[in-house]
């Protein structure tokens, strides 16, 4: 289908001059990472310019190339052989630049550039400033490498590389062990999903003989790849997506990942790396469509995730954790859209979410920078001290809550509408579940963001010292993102917005104006958000109840949420600790006492037997009492002496006998 797209959108099939060179966009940050890594320390605090230049150039190229695609130039696929094994395996190293890639490139380079700039303020004076920028560039390159991959194995390579960058950056403040533990947790949890991803690649590769994404999708569309193999393959790929995009039950790593510096959270854990899972499903969408119940599984997992995470966001005190759970919930929104077949809506939400969630994280970073605490209980009343952060944060919050006409409104509304359409017109059970979850989540989202805004910006300041607005290097990116949050939604205007044309998927018909979908549902969803904001205002500001209602009237719910549904405890207590200690100790015990016991026991027995045999052959040597004594004192102490005093002769004797026996045996037959 993407195949078809390339041909359809481009009658002349002429590639744009920029689109052909898009492989350079990942390469630039890789080079920047190498330069900063090796020479950064000699640049005297100016090393960030290397990264800014590399990513900035990438952004310019991404925008030009995207404009060329939109203007009718062809999508580009190019590759060369990475390695091959005779005719049994050929792995390519290639690029596949189409609209989906284009959207991701614009998102990744934009957010990365802003984060690079913002960090010059936020990370100023950090001990490992140089390393931070090297890792940031390395991440950006890896992410683009993942996105541009023309085959699943290359994508997997990028997938793991962003994972390890994430590990490094989460653990940036590794002097404190909770931070390095959070980094390990993130890596291991996602790796569990990645094993599934890798096996999914195997399944598809063995079924189709190729790693090529376009070809696999094409074969699925043609029906040559189908049945249970397609379903198993798709579901295994989805395992990887569940890990990376923090879906239930592997979502537990993302809140802990907030241990990393806040700009990292904005870039990696909100806007780019965590959407890789959504991107994977979108990339392989045709396969998923033709893979039996796979999309239903995606939809159900996403529905559960969005609710569970949104509820958790409601009880957090750490502002970054509020946003982290919000991210989990919004990623589920995107997944759910794909799950009900709303490809364009899902991708569009990925696009808009990147801007307003990055804005919120960078805003949170600005707050944390000012009050030196992540906790909202140390904030309050900050609108007076930090007007720019306040205004931009409110814009981001409204966008996330889905208030007209901000970015989140259009994308969220499209998902709700598509779920409703699938539910009402095709009466898919899963679509009904998605629709219901989406509505409830929309309500919860507006509620927790209201709570967060009130606790940070309203009331009295509860922290220490006098907070100040952040420097321009941090505020300017906030305003740029705020501008984007206000405007990018217009690209996806129903009926007329160009986004759907760009992303245009054959088979997904563009709907004309419809009162139900374009007036009633949007009004209803905005109404729900407004109601939630009003409720939040009453609960958290006017009546100052904080979450007391929950914690007193529904104490068990509150406890359940506070303990994150006990999932972390179950994983830690049920898997990690048992493996780490008792199981490992048991394995090692068997190693030392059983396996090695047999070895040492055999040695003892051999010594004993040897003494007997040798005694028969030659009495004299037995008289050397050393042997007997050492044999009894055991293997560890005496054997070296043994070697020197006769054991080697004994070995030789054995060898001779054995060889003679063998010669006799085989020589005669």
């Amino acid at each position, binding site marked *: 289908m993407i195949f078809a797209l390339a041909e359809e959108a481009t009658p002349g099939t002429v590639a744009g001059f920029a689109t052909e060179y898009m492989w350079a966009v990942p390469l630039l940050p890789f080079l920047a990472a190498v330069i900063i890594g090796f020479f950064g320390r000699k640049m005297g605090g100016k090393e960030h310019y290397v990264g800014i230049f590399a990513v900035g150039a990438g952004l310019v190229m991404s925008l030009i190339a995207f404009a060329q695609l939109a203007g009718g130039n062809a999508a580009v696929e190019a590759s060369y052989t990475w390695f091959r094994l005779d005719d049994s395996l050929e792995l390519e190293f290639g690029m596949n630049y189409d609209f989906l890639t284009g959207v991701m490139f614009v998102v990744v380079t934009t957010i990365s550039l802003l984060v690079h700039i913002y960090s010059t303020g936020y990370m100023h004076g950090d001990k490992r400033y140089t390393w931070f920028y090297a890792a940031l560039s390395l991440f950006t390159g890896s992410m683009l490498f993942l996105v541009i991959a023309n085959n699943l194995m290359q994508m997997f390579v990028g997938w793991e590389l962003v994972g390890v960058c994430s590990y490094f950056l989460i653990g940036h403040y590794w002097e404190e062990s909770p931070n390095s533990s959070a980094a390990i947790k993130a890596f291991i949890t996602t790796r569990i999903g990645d094993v599934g991803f890798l*096996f999914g690649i195997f399944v598809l590769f063995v079924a189709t003989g190729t790693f090529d994404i376009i070809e696999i999708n094409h074969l699925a569309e043609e029906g040559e790849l189908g049945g249970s193999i397609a379903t198993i393959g798709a579901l295994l790929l989805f395992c990887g997506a569940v890990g990376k995009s923090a879906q239930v039950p592997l979502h537990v790593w993302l809140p802990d990942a907030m241990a990393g510096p806040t700009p990292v959270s904005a870039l990696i854990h909100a806007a780019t790396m965590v959407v890789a899972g959504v991107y994977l499903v979108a990339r392989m969408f045709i396969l998923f469509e033709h893979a039996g119940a796979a999309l239903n599984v995606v939809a159900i997992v996403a529905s559960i995730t969005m609710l569970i995470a949104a509820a958790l966001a409601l009880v957090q005190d750490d502002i970054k954790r509020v946003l982290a759970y919000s991210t989990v919930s919004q990623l589920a929104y995107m997944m759910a859209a794909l799950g009900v077949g709303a490809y364009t809506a899902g991708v569009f939400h990925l696009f808009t979410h990147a801007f307003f969630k990055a804005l919120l994280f960078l805003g949170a970073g600005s707050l944390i920078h000012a009050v030196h605490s992540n906790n909202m209980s140390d904030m309050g009343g900050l609108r007076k001290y930090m007007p720019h952060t306040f205004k931009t944060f409110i814009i981001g919050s409204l966008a996330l809550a889905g208030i007209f006409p901000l970015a989140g409104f259009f994308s969220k509304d499209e998902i709700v509408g598509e779920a409703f359409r699938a539910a009402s017109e095709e009466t898919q059970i899963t679509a009904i579940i998605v629709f219901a979850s989406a509505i409830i989540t929309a309500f919860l989202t507006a509620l927790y963001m209201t709570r967060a805004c009130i606790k940070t910006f309203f009331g009295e300041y509860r922290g220490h010292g006098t907070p100040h607005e952040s420097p321009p290097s941090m505020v300017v990116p906030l305003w740029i993102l705020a501008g984007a949050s206000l405007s990018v939604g217009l690209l996806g205007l129903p009926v007329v917005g160009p986004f759907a044309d760009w992303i245009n998927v054959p088979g997904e018909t563009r709907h004309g104006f419809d009162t139900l979908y374009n007036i009633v549902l949007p009004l209803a969803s905005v109404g729900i958000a407004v109601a939630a904001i009003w409720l939040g205002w009453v609960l958290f500001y006017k009546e100052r109840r904080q979450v007391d209602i929950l914690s007193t009237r529904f104490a068990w719910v509150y406890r359940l949420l506070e303990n994150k549904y006990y999932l972390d405890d179950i994983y830690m207590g049920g898997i990690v600790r048992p493996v780490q200690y008792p199981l490992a100790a048991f394995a090692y015990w068997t190693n030392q006492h059983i396996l090695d016991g047999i070895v040492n026991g055999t040695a003892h027995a051999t010594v004993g037997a040897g003494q007997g045999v040798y005694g028969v052959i030659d009495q004299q040597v037995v008289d050397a009492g050393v042997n007997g004594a050492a044999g009894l004192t055991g293997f560890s102490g005496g054997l070296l002496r043994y070697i020197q005093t006769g054991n080697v002769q004994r070995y030789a004797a054995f060898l001779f006998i054995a060889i003679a026996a063998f010669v006799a045996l085989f020589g005669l037959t």
Partner: protein
Amino acid sequence: MEWLDTWGLSLAVFLPMVGVVVLLFVPGSMDGVAKAVGLLFTGAALLVGVAVGLRFDYGSAGAIKLEVNERWIPQIDARYHVGIDGIALPLFELSLLVSFLCIVYLLWHVPSPGKTKALIALTLLLETGMTGTFIALDLILFFIFWEVVLVPMYFMIGIWGGPRREYAAVKFFLYTLFGSIFMLLGFLALYFQGNTFDMIALREQGNLGSTLVQNLTFAGLFLGFAIKVPMWPFHTWLPDAHTEAPTIGSVLLAAVMLKMGTYGFIRIAYPILPDAAVYFAPVIGILAVIAIIYGALCCFAQSDLKRLIAFSSVGHMGFVMLGIATVSDRGINGAIFGMVAHGLITGMLFFLAGSIHERFHTREISSLGGVLQQMPRFGSVLVYAGIASLGLPGLAGFWGEMLALLGSYQPGAGLDEGLFRILMVGGGIGTVLTAGYLLWTIQRVAMGAVPEKFADGRGLFDVHPLEWTAWAPLLALILAAGIYPRMVLGVTDGAVQNLLKSFGG
């Protein structure tokens, strides 16, 4: 330079031996001269090896090349038959490189009790044995090179080793010797069936005795090779040998000697006894996956850094053996890649463990910490090697594991697909466990606070220039093999195709 095409291989193998002879005339007190001799001869061997590698015809990497086949011991039909193909070449070059780097490392530090000359002589002898094993095409020749390796390593552990060196040395020697006996019996059985010790001729003959005889012969070879690898449950000599061995002993052991076992499977057992190989493959596969998981679990229980790395070798060699067990193009290529990767990465890790011991005078993980703070470069190299070891794509560790697992998803003809898919899942679980203990180790050693005991930083200097010299080639190759896997696979694939012809492939 035509002569390189014939006697080049032998020259590279025996140059270190010439070095040993030269060392005989060097007084024991002249450490500097001994080091220079060591450097000269390992360096010369490496240069010859590279030159031979450059003359190797990569277009037909499948065939045995650069052959010499001369009369040697006519009484028992043993010939001096050497040659190299795409399977052996990477291992041959790896041995030459690592031996040279070990001598470079000795320039920086000679372990107690000194005796530099003796240590260098043993290293040279070891090099001849190791490189010879990879080019021998005659079973007796192979056996001699194989056994030559034992003696220097025995003395290396026994003299320059840690507190339990005597136990470890004897255990290493006897255990591998025990295996060698069975291997030798296997060789003799082959001789009596095929009337030749020539590997190539034996392979071409095929049909070496009844199924029972073939299986018994394979079992003998299996025991010899499996102990060397070492495969679970024959691995218990390895942690002791590694823990007690001096740094360069551990490096050579991990980087090269373990590969002699896996190489034996691919070079001798598989092509000559293909039916028996298929018969035993499920057992090998099961033992391999047990090794992967068991090795990883044991790593969690270790308190000594070096012992931990030793157990990690058990797991990593498990992936190699899993690849071999699949009897498939992908699996065996993956296995050879895995051997090279493990040689580079684990060799590097043992260098690091040794250098940690030199600085902190302990390898107890619980008493280390914050290495990245006090020695940022050293710490970074440690993190890099650790991350490589857990199989991160882009570094060398990934491709071997990936191909071995892919091989088990679709094993070679005649093997039970269901069983091997279960093994694949086991291997997958192993990769998660591997990541777990390695990251945990990195956290405890490299990250966190500096322990009070070392807070003054006395004696803690960052990577020494000679250490850089010894390590840089390994670090670079780890990256190069990760980015450009064709570097290895392009050489091995032809030879693996050739091997698979024995299996009707």
